[in-house]
């Protein structure tokens, strides 16, 4: 798969995509500071001035989080595209074609790997592919990841960043919420840990299914996490939403996540968590 070769060099696709040569500065959405693009991979796309966590390409994230050379792609069987023959202003088939220009088939990665020496399976949503929306292929990826973790008897980590359902797949996209739940319930019943790392943004059907079913929920600082999108809520209540609403820190305060973990600490926290939660697996 193409995206694996990209992992070898820690270059970022998001950076490359913006790729205009003059565009070497990125403005921090948090404080407005101009950040030098070339420095961003080194700083894990975190603003040095205010600590704002910028969106981070999924391949670089996985390369950082997993032990060096531990990562192996898990094959996810392909599914035929466009079950409804959907067309809005543009054909869904054409949208897919455009999105696939980067060599990625759909909004997910499934890998076997290790964190601090602890083996696990990771399924990660790719926000750069149609906003990480949940297609049948994404649902299939979560199912395969859960089944792989179950077969390997290792924990499953799910990294989310998603705008919610893939509307172009209609109710079949909605069904992925139940589908993924079925696979995750089986994993949990087998006594295996399920962890989630919620990144910006995690909304809609993803929040209302596998993102919120973890034994442990970790969230990135400032990540928007919710069921309904802020704009939908504002239209419903006809009020401006309070500052910080639906952000990771707000969810921590309201008991929906276990911790808010800055990027540079995620490996360490995950390693320590895994060291404990896997200790029961082999004893059964």
């Amino acid at each position, binding site marked *: 798969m193409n995206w694996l070769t990209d992992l070898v060099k820690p270059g970022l696709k998001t950076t490359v995509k913006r790729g205009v040569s003059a565009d070497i500065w990125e403005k921090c959405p948090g404080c407005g500071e101009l950040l030098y693009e070339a420095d961003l991979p080194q700083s894990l796309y975190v603003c040095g001035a205010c600590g704002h966590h910028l969106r981070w390409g999924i391949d670089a994230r996985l390369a950082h989080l997993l032990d060096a050379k531990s990562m192996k792609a898990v094959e996810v069987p392909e*599914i035929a595209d466009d*079950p*409804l023959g*959907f*067309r*809005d*202003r543009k054909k869904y088939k054409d949208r897919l074609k455009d999105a696939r220009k980067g060599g990625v088939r759909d909004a997910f990665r499934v890998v076997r790997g290790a964190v601090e020496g602890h083996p696990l399976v990771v399924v990660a949503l790719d926000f750069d592919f149609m906003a990480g929306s949940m297609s*049948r292929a994404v649902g*299939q990826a979560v*199912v395969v990841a859960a089944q792989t973790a179950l077969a390997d008897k290792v924990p499953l980590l799910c990294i989310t960043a998603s705008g919610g*359902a893939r*509307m*172009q*797949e*209609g*109710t*079949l*996209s*909605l*069904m992925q*919420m*139940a*589908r993924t*739940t*079925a*696979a*995750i*319930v*089986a994993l949990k019943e087998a006594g295996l840990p399920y962890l989630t790392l919620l990144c910006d943004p995690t909304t*809609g*059907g993803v*929040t*209302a*299914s*596998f*993102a*919120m*079913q973890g034994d442990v929920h970790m969230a990135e600082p400032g990540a928007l*996490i*919710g*069921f*309904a999108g802020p704009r*939908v*809520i504002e239209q*419903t*209540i006809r009020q401006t*939403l*309070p500052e910080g*609403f*639906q952000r990771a820190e707000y969810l921590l305060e*309201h*008991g*929906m996540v276990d911790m808010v973990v800055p990027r540079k600490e995620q490996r360490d926290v995950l390693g320590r968590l895994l060291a404990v939660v896997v200790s029961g697996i082999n004893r059964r």
Partner: protein
Amino acid sequence: MVQFLDFEKPLLDLQAKVEELRAAEASGADIAEKDIAGEIDRLEIRMARVARLLYRDLSPVQIMQVARHPERPQGADYVKALVEGFVPLAGDRRYGDDQAMLAGVGKWLGQTPCVVCAIDKGKTTAERIARNFGMPKPEGYRKAQRLMRMADRLGLPIVTLVDTPGAYPGVDAEERGQGQAIAESLDVLMQVKVPVVSVITGEGGSGGALALAAADRVLMLEHGIYSVISPEGCAAILWKEANKDTIHAAATALKLTAKDLLEHKVIDGIIDEPVGGAQRDAALAMKRVGKAVAAQLAEVAKANGGAEARRGRFLGIL
């Protein structure tokens, strides 16, 4: 008298003529030589024929209008008509009681003891406000979870009746974890070993509907809709503007009708509605729902597949 939808104009016109004749008849005006009663009969026969023609070939947007008709039977109507000795149970034991989620125990058609969870939109303005227009909050889903866990322990089958624009998109709902609540409902439904039968009676609004409909068997009323997003919302996002044309296009593209969903195996069966929709003959519509659910409950109980079969049903939907 039932409220007419815009595409029902031919019916409305005929109805107006009938009313006119009735008024004339009542006033005993000087048209006595005309056969008023016969004329009314003829008009009513014509109305039935027009209704049959209109409803034979509804567009997805028209189906959506019927699904949302304010006079369709509601959760509470179904429970009253179909669940003998119903005892409503309240509260999620954590925060509050959600009146959009009617839940309790009783005997389905007087025969099968079960747990029932039914969304109710309300009929009067006061009811609609109290029931939040059928949009449950986390406490509603958590009340349903509590009853489903109890049903599982006690060996009672679960019937859910779904009619919701969606889970409530509000500040308080988010604050209490609307996403987590729906996720947990799905989790519970993938675990219970007792039979679960769901009916989409009107609107099946996205995750807020699925949270009750991750069942062994999912039935839908003929003019119900079940969708990942409302056609209005879909039009606003994908067509960048929600107007009559884009909403029509979105409703068509989303494949949200019972016929479409049966074809894609999202649902297992369609319950026919009386001519002119469930709003025109609620008693008949509810009677059919009662029979269909009873048949499915018996089938699922006989198959005895437990949670495994239900998981298989959803894992198989691609």
